[in-house]
């Protein structure tokens, strides 16, 4: 089934590889945003099926972006998966406690990223 995923990450390389991966492996449509503010606007306009959200970003980080997405009725019900290079277990527990659907780790395998997202969201 076709899906539309919004990737919010300030790092160009991660955004591009994630988009390539989801489009090539799963055939999903992707949208990208380089900041939390841009991502919030695109989420409201485009209504993606899920959002892949980087944790460490300047200005508005991932958790702050997530809180704004949840506050806005237009984006409150869009599933959000955090993407982080923070590997320590206490950090992952903190992120999971925010209420996101899943916490995925960087680096990701381009061949497996779509399967990780589908599994986390029950899209199998």
């Amino acid at each position, binding site marked *: 089934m076709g899906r539309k995923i919004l990737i919010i990450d300030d*790092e*160009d*390389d*991660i955004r*591009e*590889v994630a988009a*390539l*991966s989801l489009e*090539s*492996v*799963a055939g999903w449509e992707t949208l990208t945003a380089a900041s939390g503010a841009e991502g919030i606007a695109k989420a409201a306009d485009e209504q993606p099926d899920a959002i892949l959200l980087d944790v*460490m970003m300047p200005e508005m980080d991932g958790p702050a972006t997530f809180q704004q997405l949840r506050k806005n009725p237009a984006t409150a019900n869009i599933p959000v998966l955090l993407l*982080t*290079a923070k*590997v320590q277990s206490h950090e992952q527990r903190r992120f999971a406690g925010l209420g996101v659907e899943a916490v995925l780790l*960087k*680096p*990701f*395998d*381009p*061949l*497996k990223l*779509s*399967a990780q997202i*589908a599994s986390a969201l029950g899209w199998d």
Partner: protein
Amino acid sequence: MESPDPCDGVDKAALADAIDCLWRRFLPEILRRVAVLEEAAAAKNITSSRREAAQSAAHKLAGVLGTFGLTRGTVLARELELTFARESAAEPASDTRLIEATRQLRIMIENRPSAS
């Protein structure tokens, strides 16, 4: 019964070619991050701003190198991130290790094998 391979039907060669293309495009930025680490590792009296820049560069490298197949690069970058995160980093005993780790990282990146 095994679940179906999600990659069945994926043109892996085309994906690998595309990943190689992205690697070439982003290599200058990746090497710029390595240079930030090298400068911090070589500094005798590292400032807090340089330490933070090095920590950030290492964090970004740790997050991306494995995606391009450089798993060992991610391990090295994580080691550097943790070292620069410590306030007492860059003591004489750790300087040598920092310089060696950044040297290894550069060699690894400059010699990344093609994914295809």
